[in-house]
């Protein structure tokens, strides 16, 4: 069924990650992403990996859910890795030199690091933002963080309201699509076979009712909001006020220290670890 599609799914819970202020999660999320891009050596990646595992454990979200989140990008990762391996020209002697294929050590290293970066990026940001933060509190946090921009005339509140509404209606529209699909299937419509042109044409009986109902819904929602005196230009109070707690301060500190640690580790010379083969491997700079 189409409703099995997960779109940035939120898993309700009571872990430390769930309780953090959404603004904290947005900022530490950015710090984490910066850390991923400042990591230059295998040792730094090891640290990133351990930190991510620790976050998963703290969030109490099962590893199978995390793996399911990575699955959609696997083919893209394989494709770009192959491109990286084939297209990167190194300075040393190629490892493989066959016909038009030249594979250099640099290409392989680059592919491995890119893959790790993307995976960490997906796991880290979905852990902090989508899995443990409800869409509503996420937009609240975003609005609060961007609110200084409204001083220079950017309608931050309008954007956040639009985002909230869009997020709110994704499940509704998915359900609606399912319903219309079933109704048209009951009239002998076929969405799954035939040529591309035929299939595209088969979507018309699905898309027309979907758009009609989306417009109708939008109109009804607008009327309902106006009936409750909603005005864009008026300042609104919040039902849930965002407040920072000690745990938010603590998280900022942890992430800032972690970021500094990654930068330091990436610059650490192999000699500091004894200078042996493993030390040199761990401190190999990309």
């Amino acid at each position, binding site marked *: 069924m189409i409703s099995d599609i997960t779109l940035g799914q939120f898993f309700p819970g009571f872990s430390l990650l769930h309780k953090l202020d959404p603004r904290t999660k947005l900022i530490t999320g950015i710090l984490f992403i910066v850390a991923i891009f400042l990591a230059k050596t295998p040792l730094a990646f090891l640290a990133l990996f351990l930190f991510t595992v620790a976050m998963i454990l703290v969030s109490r979200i099962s590893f199978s859910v995390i793996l399911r989140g990575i699955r959609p990008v696997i083919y893209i990762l394989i494709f770009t890795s192959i491109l990286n391996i084939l297209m990167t020209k190194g300075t040393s002697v190629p490892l493989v030199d066959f016909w038009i294929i030249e594979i250099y050590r640099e290409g392989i290293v680059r592919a491995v690091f890119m893959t790790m970066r993307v995976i960490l990026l997906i796991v880290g940001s979905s852990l902090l933002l989508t899995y443990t933060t409800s869409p509503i509190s996420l937009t609240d946090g975003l609005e609060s963080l961007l609110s200084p921009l409204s001083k220079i005339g950017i309608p931050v509140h309008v954007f956040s309201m639009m985002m909230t509404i869009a997020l709110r209606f994704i499940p509704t529209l998915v359900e609606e699509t399912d319903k219309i699909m079933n109704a*048209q299937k009951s009239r002998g419509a076929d969405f799954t076979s035939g040529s591309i042109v035929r299939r595209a044409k088969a979507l018309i009986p699905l898309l*027309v*009712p979907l758009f009609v109902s989306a417009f109708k819904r939008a109109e009804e929602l607008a009327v309902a909001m106006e009936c409750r005196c909603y005005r864009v230009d008026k300042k609104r109070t919040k039902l849930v006020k965002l407040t920072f707690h000690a745990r938010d301060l603590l998280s900022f500190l942890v992430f800032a220290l972690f970021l500094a640690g990654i930068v330091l580790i990436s610059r650490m010379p192999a000699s500091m670890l004894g200078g042996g083969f493993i030390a040199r491997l761990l401190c190999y700079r990309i």
Partner: protein
Amino acid sequence: MHSPRCWGVMCVYKLELKGISYLYSKNTPFEKLALSEINLGFEEGKITGLIGHTGSGKSTLVNLLNGLYRPTEGTVLLDGKDIWENPKQIAKIRTQVGLVMQYPEYQLFDETVRADIGFAPRNLGLSPEEVERRVSEAVAFTGIPDALLDRSPFELSGGQKRRVAIAGVMAMGAGVLVLDEPAAGLDPRGRREILDGVRAYARKNGLTVILVSHSMEDMALYCDNVIVMNRGRVYASGTVDEVFSDADGLMEIGLNVPMVARIAAALRKKGFPLEGTLYTVEGVKDAILRLGKEGRA
């Protein structure tokens, strides 16, 4: 729990459910049992009502009848054959069991009313003449004036849209017609027009009809047999008279029993031995009058 109007080999079930259970979101934390141990038969050429409280499993059952859902356990038999025998042919089953969903007007999409009603026959790959014939037959049911047939379906009134949507399923020419709350949200006149139209069409074409509704009044007026669902199980089944004589039990499972049926039940509780059809105003009136005469005699 078969319909008691059937006697052994004499019985002709157009559609039959055997040992059906249905689980939503199987193998996930959101797993939910919607139907269990359903054994039912729908008699050929009859109108069978399906009634039950919200969440009793009516709509799930309806989606099983034309193969939109596959039962977790059990079989659905159409003319004695398992509809899931060959899962690749399930689209064919859907053309033999016409399903009209709740609020079906959202399925309208085509440029004209005529083209929209012709969607199903066109999908069947019929010749243009045959499509035209089926459309005009279904149009007769809608009672929509010819002048509107070449207009957009979105210009019609609510009741007209509903009738066009139902006609769109009728035009498929299925032997079984399943209607999920076809009169929901319409005024009393709109309800009557739709249900009268469905009954006339079904009788004329010898269709087997399954009519889902909340309203016991509708059931009493339009159905031959009734099935009552409660919490994913069959609570009762039989003829309208048999099932609706148990007003107390139906009220207990949260059904909206007609006011007269409640009065009749209350009177019986007070010791008045009313008998006969106790769910229509006419029936209760007759019963009370009969009792009065007997009392005087």
